[in-house]
């Protein structure tokens, strides 16, 4: 295509690129810990966008999504750590992780996708728990997952001799591990966003949306709803698998604890709170729900000291309490999420107008 970008959009892209390049340095002023949190926010964007394909595009409620993340993480951990003495390269592990997650997605999806919405929700939830319990217990009689202790000393992301875990220098700027991972993650994120946008605006994306809108009508125009739903499941699962692999490499450590039900719920909350089916909204949801609880962690103790002169309430509980309240309040006042797709908000505006009549 020859559609050259207009000067205005070129400028916009340049500005966004500059902001993305500068971001870790700005965040890093508050400490390197915040760069790590930033990296996790991007990882959650991967997850939320993957789940958005299932929940937002195709309208299937999945409460066990984190299982696919776990599959990807353990794939990396087992294929690139001293646990089995394997050290596969990234270009081999990531596809294997994605494929394996995809396989599990199809395995779970093919018998269950005919179920009604809420039944599907509980079945996927159960599946997520089963995966976690297996990871917790597959250390005996044959030690596969090393049980609750998890797997340590996992290889970082490496391209040849270039490792993302160590410090290195570019043009006189020294970058530590988290900064280098940040740029890798941003590059991946851009790729994933493009893939998502393209999927949404395609024959398959329209079929997903049609199923979400009216399954019977979708069947009547010849959409094989079962296969198309399965495709959404498989796509979402592969995204989760890739995110899981990067997670394992970045952390250097995985254990079943990271893949509990609350994580699935968290990712779902990101999707719904941000604006289901709307890619910018989902990204916003992932960023907010990663950063706000972390910021609350730093804010609740000083706030209590300022108010009561001492720490009255357990900070961790207070932080989670505020998080729960935030979920409830957003849903109360923005039922379609903070940044819903334009059609969605139009629909709601009409509804309110209808009530006012």
């Amino acid at each position: 295509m020859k559609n050259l970008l207009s000067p205005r959009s070129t400028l916009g892209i340049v500005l966004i690129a500059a902001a993305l390049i500068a971001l870790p340095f700005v965040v890093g002023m508050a400490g390197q810990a915040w760069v790590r949190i930033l990296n996790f926010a991007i990882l959650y964007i991967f997850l939320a966008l993957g789940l958005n394909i299932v929940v937002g595009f195709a309208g299937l409620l999945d409460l066990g999504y984190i299982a696919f993340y776990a599959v990807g993480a353990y794939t990396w951990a087992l294929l690139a750590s001293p646990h089995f003495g394997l050290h596969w390269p990234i270009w081999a592990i990531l596809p294997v992780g994605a494929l394996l997650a995809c396989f599990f997605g199809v395995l779970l999806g093919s018998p269950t996708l005919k179920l009604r919405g809420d039944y599907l929700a509980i079945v996927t939830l159960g599946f997520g728990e089963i995966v976690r319990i297996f990871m917790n217990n597959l250390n005996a009689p044959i030690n596969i997952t090393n049980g609750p202790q998890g797997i340590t000393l996992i290889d970082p992301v490496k391209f040849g001799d270039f490792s993302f875990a160590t410090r290195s220098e570019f043009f006189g700027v020294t970058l530590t591990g988290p900064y280098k991972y940040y740029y890798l993650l941003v590059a991946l994120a851009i790729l994933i966003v493009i893939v998502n946008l393209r999927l949404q605006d395609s024959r398959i994306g329209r079929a997903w949306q049609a199923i979400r809108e009216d399954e019977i009508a979708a069947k009547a125009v010849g959409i094989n709803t079962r296969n198309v739903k399965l495709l959404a499941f498989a796509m979402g699962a592969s995204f989760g698998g890739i995110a899981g692999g990067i997670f394992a490499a970045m952390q250097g450590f995985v254990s079943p604890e990271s893949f509990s039900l609350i994580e699935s719920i968290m990712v779902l909350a990101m999707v719904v709170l941000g604006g289901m089916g709307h890619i910018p909204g989902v990204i916003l949801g992932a960023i907010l729900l990663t950063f706000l609880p972390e910021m609350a962690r730093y804010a609740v103790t000083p706030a209590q000291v300022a108010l009561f002169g001492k720490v009255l309430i357990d900070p961790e509980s207070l932080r989670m309490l505020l998080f729960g309240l935030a979920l409830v309040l957003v849903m109360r006042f923005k039922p379609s999420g903070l940044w819903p797709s334009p059609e969605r908000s139009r629909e709601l505006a009409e509804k309110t107008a209808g009530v006012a009549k």
Partner: protein
Amino acid sequence: MSEVLLEARSVAKHFGGVKALQDVSLSIRQGEVYGLIGPNGAGKTTFFNCMTGLYVPDGGGFTFAGAPLQADAPQRAAERGIARTFQNIRLFGNMTALENVMVGRHVRTKASVFGAIFRDPKTRAEEAAIRQRALDLLHYVDIADRADDLAKNLSYGDQRRLEIARALATEPKLLCLDEPAAGMNATETEELRVLIEGIRKDGTTVLLIEHDVKLVMGLCDRVAVLEYGALLIEDVPAIVQKDQRVIEAYLGA
């Protein structure tokens, strides 16, 4: 007369003890507009649903375009070339009119997930063709000016037209319309009649389920009348109109 497109042989369907359809045999010929009428609850929509794979008939079966029609999955019916509209309009409400018709192209196109992601030239060409065909169809049913409006925001008459355009997008050999004139005023009904005439002229066979007897008699080449799930008569309108049983069924003797 031309060859038979769809043949129903002794189709039966019951719900619990209620016999919704019993021993219904009829045949629709290539290129005609075929009317299916009958009082409320006579089994018209049930017949429709059996034919389009939404229900599995309890007895009998269908032959379509020379091969048996496996009536177990609606998407198979659409693949074979049977498209339908719904009595109570089922559009994809939060998609635009254009997108609704584009979804109708799904069954005749191929782009996979990989095509969607990599946007190779073949996929792009297909996508452009889908869009063009959808726009043409919106012109055809005369609602091209509403292409970018959400389907649920269209007027009732336009929604009916959009549903027909979406069905036509699947390139049907047989287009089944389930009470398309329901809730329409005289002008809208007349416009609908012109539209159906046009569809027939362009070579698509039409099966019309209708309450509006005047519309059916004026439009259809042949008409079948159902009563209490059984076929009363199948013939040209002039004869059906004069049939004593039909008159009784409608006047409720």
